[in-house]
């Protein structure tokens, strides 16, 4: 069956419904959730706080530690084994690298900022949802940041270019699929995460990046509003 229409009737440049909220975990210094369709990411930020073991400390600047974790029954197919895996370790690392360019940790030497991203429910695009949630949580934690980070996955199924692939599209059996998660800083206009899974032509890549940029701007507006919503009372 050739792929000519999205399975959930979305437009090709339309994301799944997004919901974002800031300040959801009272014990954390900053927290947020970001839900895109059936992919839910909760992020909690703790710190800057004391870092041990001591040899990990950097006297020049604070360090960022991200932890990405999918809960055991979060995905619709196989049970995810609890604890870290090769995959979660990689995603933790790329999340860290996606967030570091906007963070200014020079003010916090020898300390650590911990980011915990928990996904109770996933259906593709989880690293992007995680990055979106984490960037809001970091802003909520009052850290010095140059910009927020917005992320979305773009890709190609058969001959169609599309935004925010869901699980059925990511694993579409009868066509070539390319899945490209992209994270961007909306105001500084930089790409902080770019990965790719599958085959895609050079011309398509630039088109896809334009689509990703447009979508990231929309996501940024949602993140901004969610942050302002929490502190609305303070501006009165």
């Amino acid at each position, binding site marked *: 069956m050739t792929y000519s229409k999205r399975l959930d009737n979305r437009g090709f440049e339309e994301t799944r419904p997004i919901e974002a909220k800031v300040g959801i975990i009272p014990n954390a*210094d*900053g927290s947020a959730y970001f839900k895109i369709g059936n992919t839910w990411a909760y992020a909690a930020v703790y*710190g*800057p*706080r*004391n870092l041990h073991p001591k040899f990990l400390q950097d*006297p020049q600047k*604070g360090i960022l530690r991200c932890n990405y974790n999918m809960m055991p029954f979060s995905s619709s197919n196989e049970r995810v084994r609890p604890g870290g895996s090769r995959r979660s370790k990689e995603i933790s690392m790329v999340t860290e690298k996606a967030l570091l360019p*906007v963070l*200014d940790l020079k*003010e*916090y*030497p*020898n*300390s650590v900022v911990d980011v915990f991203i928990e996904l109770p429910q996933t259906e593709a695009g989880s690293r992007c949802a995680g990055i979106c949630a984490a960037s809001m949580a970091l*802003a*909520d*934690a*009052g*850290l*010095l*940041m*140059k*910009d*927020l980070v917005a992320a979305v996955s773009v890709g190609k199924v058969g001959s169609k270019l599309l935004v925010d692939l869901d699980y059925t599209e990511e694993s579409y059996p009868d066509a070539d699929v390319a899945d490209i998660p992209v994270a961007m*800083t*909306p*105001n*500084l206009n930089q790409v902080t995460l770019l990965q790719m899974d599958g085959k895609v032509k050079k011309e398509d890549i630039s088109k896809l990046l334009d689509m990703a940029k447009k979508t990231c701007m929309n996501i940024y507006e949602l*993140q*901004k509003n969610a*942050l*302002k919503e929490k*502190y*609305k*009372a*303070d*501006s*009165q």
Partner: protein
Amino acid sequence: MTEIRIKEKEIVVPGEVLAVGMEVLPGTGTYRMNDKIIAGRLGLAAIDGRTIKLIPLSGRYTPKKNDVIICKVIDVNFSGWRLDTNSAYSAMLSMKDATSDFIQRGADLTQYFDLGEYLVCGIVNVTSQKLIDVTMKGPGLRKLRGGRIIQVDSHKVPRIIGKQGSMVSMIKNETACNIVVGQNGLIWIDGQPEQELAAIRTIRKIEKESHLSGLTEKIKEYLAGNKGE
């Protein structure tokens, strides 16, 4: 041509353009990129003449010189005490800043301040590497005995203290509790158990409604209504 894109007391998020033009200057929490001034953190915008700065609304306590804070003794060593400051960095209280008593070389320092005890101390100095020196010499700086410690958001502390300490002295008078508010968000309360609870309830209320104007009047009514209980 200078254009200020935000209003006074508006909430801004990191990356938001606050103003365009070279006539305005970036204050704390903001940075300049080309001719734009951009928010470098989440905060409340404040326009002060030609500069735009951000007032932080959230985040951990950052130690500042001359702050009076409440600390917990976490370690005792040869020359003094190490204190937890409720921030990312611990503070050092040296023997000579702790007391004017003569302390014999090699004396047991725990007889002055033991592990787990709380102290009110003043920050003397904070280095670029965030090494903190504190002192116990000064008015009101002392060891805390009895009572209880609660933690609040350090950005709400000015509200809890009030103008010239009006808010906190009102709570003290109404509940007959001794209260010490540390800039680091730790508050010590000592009094009759029910009164301590009343004071905590009041402080939590201030923390929750810190953005409202005329808060002192509201809290006065709240405390008056609470007295009967």
